[in-house]
């Protein structure tokens, strides 16, 4: 079965043919159903008409004879009642009835018991016709006796009780001499005396044998038959002669109820006329019935349905056979025709497969047809030529695209290479842990992050370039390079950002911009200096989750003259700074719903609660959460996260000492003594001590000379902090703000005369000291000089 369906699905010709044949079959079924229905109705109507004609004819004939009996009986009754006193004349009247009516069977004129005293109890003038060799003879006798008490029989009682003339139920009269039975029915009417009392009955019988022969011979169809029942349902005519007078139409129903037969019997008893369809002796039949005059009898013609509709059924079978065969032939013919018509399509299909396998130059069959298939063939040839052309172009395009993709891939690797990628980057550090991740939405992205240590400070930034793809990535690369360049010279984030902004804005022709967060974490103190240029505020995971307060600064790249503000906060030990780009809160799922800032904070809080604020764990948890949220949706934006955990608050100052000097260079010896003392405590070699003295002196003298206005008094405080690995000098003054670290490096390749005045002092300081940083705090200039205690610098 499955293979047949597969075959049909594969063969268009079979499918179309089947559709056509099915459609035709539907039309045939509808048309033939209507035709058969109508024809059947017609046949049924004809059968009814046929049966009705027979019934009417028979009924009329019976009625004709009965009318004669009734008229003759009525006339005799009139005579009898006129001569009621003369018993002997009754014999004459009785005999006269038969003499004058050759088809009357017998006649009785019977009286009530003892009506004629001389005749005693019984008097019935009875005449009967006998068939003899010399013709019919009539015998007249007195018929009543002890053996035949006529006044108890139906023909006598019925007219008396009903008080009207009536026909008796047919009955069988046995002729003892000939031992033959005659089916009779009698017309009886009561005789009245002058007072209107019933005194007797005149009864005239006719034979119904002729009727029996007529009805029994009624055969409108080969297997049809006729029946006649009396008032009591008794069969008087039936093809099964054993039933006649012995059974009624209801006999069978006594043992096996048959509602249809019972209904028929009752309808016939009521003298109704009609037709019923029912099952008789296991045969579906039509029964047509009609009463026979006033006899109380009813006649029925039983026609088996197979007879009535025999011709119709033969015709129907023949037509159906022709239709079946015709449809089959039609199916075969259509399949063959359509197969032939579609054969070029098959060739085209094969050629299409050949072309599809890569042989674009295969030769197509030449077709001279101008119909749709011809047009298809021509179109196919055109398509083949176009295909060859386009495939060639496609190859070139594909090669170009592959080249671009290769370049992009390289660019991506370069871009990623710019960013710190080996984590942990500083495994030996015990004061801070850093972890970051960047997932670009395209091959290359516009997000950036960076961090590095300078001295005891951690410089870091995170940014997001407007737009995506290659332009953004280039912008990002530029931004990151500028950050590195600027942050080498600048210590404070706002300075870094301001410088970067000026640089970028001036060269920005594409109106792109970058949101940027730059931070400098002072590792010894945990102080965080930061500047936010329009970037998402980082989260702080410490005692709780909080958002770092950020000033409203515009992103970098718009206005070169914008002054960015500096902000500061204290980071306590164990706190994690979580920085991210807008790709995190704006990550979208398949329904384009966003991850949102609240959810970022929820995940951060969850990480904190689970003690998983360690950078790598935190970013892992955040990545997992956003990954689950996004599901299979395409990444809409670059996603960058960076986490910095400040672990240890450094408080490892071994020794702290300070000196306050007025702004008078006369105080330099005192300074040198102080520095020497401290350097000794630090264990520096004498040469190193001298260098440090020189550097500190240079820085302090700078302050004494330039920080305050001439002839004004001021102070400079020098605090020395000795640590395990370094000696730090912090110079603080309340003079005018000045960052010496911004003094450009002198070109030392020039001769002394060619060089500009100044600048050498700071150059010296930078050369001697390992770290020089400046900050303006609480209206103080704070210059921090660090000299590391290395093996080469300290005594063994």
């Amino acid at each position, binding site marked *: 079965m499955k293979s047949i369906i597969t075959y049909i699905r594969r063969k268009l010709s079979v499918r179309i043919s089947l559709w056509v044949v099915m459609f035709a079959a539907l039309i045939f079924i509808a048309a033939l159903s209507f035709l058969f229905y109508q024809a059947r109705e017609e046949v049924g109507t004809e059968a009814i008409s046929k049966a009705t004609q027979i019934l009417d004819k028979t009924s009329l004939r019976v009625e004709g004879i009965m009318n004669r009996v009734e008229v003759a009986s009525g006339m005799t009754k009139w005579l009898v009642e006129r001569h009621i006193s003369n018993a002997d004349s009754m014999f004459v009247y009785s005999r006269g009835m038969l003499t004058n009516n050759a088809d009357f069977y017998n006649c009785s004129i019977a009286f009530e018991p003892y009506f004629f005293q001389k005749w005693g109890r019984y008097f019935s003038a009875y005449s009967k016709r006998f068939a003899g060799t010399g013709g019919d003879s009539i015998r007249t006798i007195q018929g009543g006796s002890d053996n035949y008490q006529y006044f*108890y029989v139906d023909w006598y009682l019925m007219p008396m009780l009903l008080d009207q003339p009536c026909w008796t139920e047919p009955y069988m009269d046995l002729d003892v001499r000939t031992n033959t039975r005659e089916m009779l029915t009698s017309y009886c009417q009561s005789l009245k005396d002058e007072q209107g009392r019933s005194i007797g009955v005149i009864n005239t019988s006719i034979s119904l044998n002729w009727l029996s022969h007529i009805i029994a011979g009624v055969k409108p169809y080969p297997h049809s038959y006729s029946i006649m029942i009396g*008032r009591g349902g008794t069969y008087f005519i039936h093809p099964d002669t054993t039933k006649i007078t012995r059974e009624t139409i209801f006999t069978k129903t006594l043992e096996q109820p048959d509602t249809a037969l019972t209904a028929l019997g009752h309808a016939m008893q009521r003298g109704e006329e009609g037709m019923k369809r029912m099952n008789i002796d296991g045969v579906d039949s039509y029964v047509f019935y009609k009463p026979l005059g006033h006899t109380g009898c009813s006649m029925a013609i039983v026609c088996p349905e197979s007879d009535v509709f025999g011709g119709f059924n033969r015709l129907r079978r023949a037509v159906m056979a022709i239709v079946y065969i015709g449809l089959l032939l039609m199916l075969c013919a259509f399949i063959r025709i359509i197969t032939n018509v579609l054969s070029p399509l098959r060739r085209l299909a094969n050629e299409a497969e050949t072309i599809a396998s890569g042989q674009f130059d295969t030769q197509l069959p030449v077709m001279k047809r101008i119909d749709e298939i011809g047009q298809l063939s021509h179109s196919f040839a055109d398509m083949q030529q176009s295909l060859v052309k386009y495939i060639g172009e496609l190859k070139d395009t594909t090669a170009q695209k592959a080249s671009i993709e290769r370049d992009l891939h390289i660019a991506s690797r370069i871009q990623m290479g710019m960013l710190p990628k080996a984590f942990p980057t500083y495994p030996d550090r015990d004061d801070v842990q850093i972890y970051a991740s960047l997932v670009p939405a395209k091959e290359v992205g516009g997000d950036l992050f960076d961090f590095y240590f300078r001295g005891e400070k951690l410089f870091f930034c995170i940014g997001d370039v407007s737009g995506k793809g290659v332009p953004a990535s280039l912008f990002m690369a530029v931004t990151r390079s500028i950050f590195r360049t600027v942050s080498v010279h600048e210590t404070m984030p706002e300075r870094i950002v301001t410088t970067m902004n000026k640089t970028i804005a001036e060269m920005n022709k594409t109106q792109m911009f970058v949101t940027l967060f730059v931070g400098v974490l002072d590792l010894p103190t945990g102080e965080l200096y930061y500047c936010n240029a329009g970037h998402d505020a980082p989260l702080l995971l410490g005692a709780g989750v909080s958002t770092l307060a950020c000033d409203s600064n515009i992103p970098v790249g718009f206005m070169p003259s914008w002054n960015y503000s500096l902000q500061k906060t204290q980071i306590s030990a164990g706190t994690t700074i979580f920085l991210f780009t807008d790709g995190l809160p704006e990550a979208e799922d398949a329904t384009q719903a966003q991850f949102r800032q609240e959810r970022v904070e929820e995940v951060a809080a969850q990480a904190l609660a689970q003690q998983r604020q360690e950078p790598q764990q935190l970013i892992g948890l955040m990545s997992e959460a956003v990954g689950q949220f996004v599901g299979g949706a395409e990444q809409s934006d670059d996603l960058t996260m960076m986490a910095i955990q400040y672990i240890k608050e450094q408080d490892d100052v071994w020794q702290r000492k300070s000196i306050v000097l007025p702004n008078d260079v006369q105080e330099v010896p005192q300074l040198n003594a102080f520095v020497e003392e401290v350097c000794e405590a630090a264990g520096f070699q004498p040469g190193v001590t001298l260098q440090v003295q020189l550097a500190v002196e240079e820085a302090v003298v700078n302050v004494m000379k330039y920080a305050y206005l001439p002839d004004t008094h001021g102070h400079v405080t020098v605090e020395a902090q000795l640590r395990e690995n370094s000696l730090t000098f912090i110079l603080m003054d309340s003079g005018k703000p000045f960052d010496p670290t911004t003094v450009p490096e002198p070109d030392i390749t020039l001769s002394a005369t060619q060089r500009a005045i100044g600048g050498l002092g700071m150059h010296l300081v930078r050369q001697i000291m390992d770290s020089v940083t400046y900050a303006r705090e609480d209206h103080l200039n704070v210059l921090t000089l660090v000299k590391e205690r290395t093996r080469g610098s300290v005594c063994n």
Partner: protein
Amino acid sequence: MSIEHLTRKLCGAVACFVLFCGVAKAMAEEDATIVFTPQWTAQAQFAGYYVAEAKGFFREAGVKVRIDHPSATQPAMDRLRNNECQATTLQLCQALEIVGGGVPLVNILQTSMNNAMVIVSARDKDPLTLKGARVGIWSVGFGQLAICMSIKDQLDYQWVRFAQNVNLFVSGALDATLAMSYNEYYQLMQAGIRMTDKNVYRFCEHGYNVQEDGVYMTRDYYLSHPELARRFAEACRKGWEWAAEHPDETLDIVMNYVNRDRIATNRVLQRLMLQEVLRLQVDRESGKREFRLRQDMVRQACDLMLEHKMLSRKVTYEELIIEQGK
């Protein structure tokens, strides 16, 4: 020849005569044929007698029996009275009427233990509501109980005597008709009359459960042929018992008699009739076929008929039954 000799010869002759007469009587009784006339035409109501004849029970009992049915208009009793037959079946009430009328009868076998008479009214009416209605009754003399009931219940039925009632009833000439539950009842059903609880009145359910069919002989005949009568009755009883045990074969036998007499009936009707007749032979109280006349029922029937002046004198059970050996 002396007187003694003469006397001796005379005595011898008398003895021979007496002996001859005795033998002759015995021989006459032995050779006598009992003409048995059931009270109706051939039907399953008389199945036991047909069985006794067909299965040879009469022959085995040494009784010659000829079953001779009456005509529709001549009662069986007339034949008995005219000595045209020696045994007949009668209903108990009929027997009481005849005995009361001066013809002594002997019940030699009682087959019915229950009353089968019903009144069927037309048009689904309760017969007890049909005051003054025209009710059909058999012309041959059944229906005494119905007449009693009509008087007692003040229904004043007009009795219409008929030879055959179905057609009269169906044609509407009668308002109601008497019927036997084994015969006319089924004939009426066969004529399409619907029987309901309403239009059928069963006498046995209204205090008139009086036995019906029994086999009777004139007292004279019985007294002159007691042994013959006993053997005849015994063979009849045997026939009925066999019929009760073999209803299907019995029905075949009945149909032979029916067909022989060309009775207008059929096997279905006869099967129903046989079932009903056999049912009526079972005594309600004992649940057995007792084949005995019940004294209480004789008394009940007699009292009813006396009360309604259908009997001129009381007829007793003892008049109907002659105990063997008495």
